[in-house]
């Protein structure tokens, strides 16, 4: 079944760019240009995800989102905004958005976040009881916090383990640097240097040195993906 995404964006060029990109990624996309129509469409309850601009004519994005939530629609929402300071991001997240992305953005960043939100919505409610994650020949024991590849233990530092667990929970998806900064370190600013890449580099050496196939892949222009070698 095709996933359906509602895009509420008043700028026609951005809306077209989003619709085209998301359609190419295999989603069914519907767009509208203002908050009232967005609220009306979302109330039908047929969408799996809502992507909304923060500043919309009629009803602004956050108010629309509040109204949608009040109507009992729990589809995840991603807010897009030109307001990019740290406080704007935190405000947006506090106002009920599941994710917040600043314009302009790389499409790779958006699609990674869309995919992560879809995956999270799919996850069964009893997920908390999961005791291990398996990605190809990699196995993570969530209780003992240990990692083994091809049956051999891989010793990781506490932070390296956190990163790997996050990647494994999004196995097969692209995870961007900013997503990791937000979710693992809880920073909403851009450090401007390659700090995350260096962490990933170390983790990759521990996961891949001495093994014959890569498992932590770099996706150019977007981020990283944990997946068995194709």
């Amino acid at each position, binding site marked *: 079944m095709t996933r359906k995404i509602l895009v509420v964006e008043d700028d026609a060029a951005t809306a077209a760019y989003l619709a085209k990109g998301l359609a190419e990624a295999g989603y069914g996309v519907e767009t509208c240009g203002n908050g009232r129509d967005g609220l009306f469409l979302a109330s039908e309850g047929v969408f799996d995800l809502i992507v909304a601009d923060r500043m919309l004519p009629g009803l602004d994005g956050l108010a629309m989102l509040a109204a949608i939530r009040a109507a009992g629609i729990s589809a995840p929402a991603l807010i897009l905004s030109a307001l990019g300071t740290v*406080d704007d991001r935190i405000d947006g997240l506090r106002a009920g958005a599941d994710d917040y992305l600043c314009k302009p953005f790389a499409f790779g960043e958006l699609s990674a976040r869309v995919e992560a939100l879809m995956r999270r919505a799919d996850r069964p409610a009893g997920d908390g009881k999961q005791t291990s994650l398996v990605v190809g020949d990699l196995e993570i024991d969530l209780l003992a916090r240990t990692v083994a590849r091809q049956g051999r233990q891989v010793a990781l530092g506490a932070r390296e383990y956190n990163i790997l667990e996050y990647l494994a929970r999004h196995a097969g998806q692209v995870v961007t640097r900013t997503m990791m900064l937000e979710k693992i370190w809880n920073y909403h600013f851009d450090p*401007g240097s390659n700090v995350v890449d260096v962490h990933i580099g170390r983790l990759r050496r521990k996961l891949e040195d001495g093994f014959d196939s890569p498992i932590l892949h770099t996706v150019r222009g977007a981020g990283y993906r944990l997946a068995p070698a194709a």
Partner: protein
Amino acid sequence: MRVSFTARLALLAITLALISSLASVFLIWNGIHNDAIAALRRDTVEQAQDLVSVYRSGGFPALSEAIDQARDPEDDTLILAVLDRHGRRVMGVGPRFAAIQPLASTPFSIAIPGHSAPWTGREAGFAIHRVGRYWLMTGRLLDDWEQEQRTIERVVGLSILLAIVTGIAAGLVVTRFVGRRLNRIADVVEAVGEGDFANRVETVAGGQDAFDRLAVRLNAMLDRIERLVGELRAVTDSLAHDLRSPLARLRARAEQASLAEDDAAREAALSDLLAETDTMMRMLTTLLEIGRSAAMGRDRFVAVEPGAIMAELAELYAPAIEEARMTLAVDLAPGLAPMALHRELLSQALANLIDNALRHAAAGGALTLAVSRSAGAGRFTVADRGLGIEPADREEAVRRFGRLDRARSLPGAGLGLSLVDAVARLHGGRLELADNAPGLSATIAIPG
């Protein structure tokens, strides 16, 4: 109805002048009135007593003689009459019939004495005493007093006229004076409004009166506006100027991509183009952040342990610092009390300092991250062993878009330290740049 300021001032002055002159006229009138009555009473009582004692010693013939002596043909206001019991005059001068009924012994009284001319309607002060079967009436009409009253009425009229004239004059003078001083201030405001920021209001009374205080305040405000406009101009100028270089780089990359011969070269140019765009976006976000933090309230502050902020950053940066062949030393004073801090912005500021150290002091030995407390302030220090910044250059390094000569060849927009400075000021603290001998020691000192 709107009345002009001048008219209102004139009215006020007229009223005040009228009140003061009428009050004094009334006091004078009252005083003279009382004096005149007192004098008349004294004369009347005295004369009556004299005549009564003449009668007692010599009877009617002596009284008649005394009355004849006392009367003066020229004086038609005098009353010296002997009346029978019906009030008819039997001797002397005065009304033919006294209008006072019934006759009784009166030491002094004021009333109309008779109904025949010339007594009709004129008041007199008189005394009545019994002399044998008759009554002796002595007194005088109040004509003197009435004359004075006329005079006083004229004076009142004059003073009203005078009050109106002086009121109008005062109104005109005061409006002219106030108007001139206010107009001078208005002229300056108008000139400044038209763009001449150098204009200032002159003070006249050495800053003593209300107009001068207004002028001094206004001048201070104009000073501040002039400074702000200057700063704004400088920022927009430098913004326009400093955005040129990243835009030029963007354009160069785009041109390279469009001229690229093969796909690989185009791909490389395009990815450079994206990287340049990101740099520029970051620059704009930082600029916004700097502007925002200058005007932000403290409602975003949360109680955070100062050491924890530095420890988290150290953890994030440790691999990158090692990669840059520097050794990381973390020195956190134990047991520091939580402080009210903006965790994200302070972290970003410290991250900027660490980034600077990574960029400008690479392979320069130890990088120290320290949190301590002294002189009532939490101190967050990032110290490197690089080239440092000369004391003379420190101000330029903190300025928005300020880039030191030797940093121009490195990537960056000259906003890092200025954001750090803005964040320090948001926390009520300051950024201190010091010599680490060798290297740079940058400290955000936050009181509290």
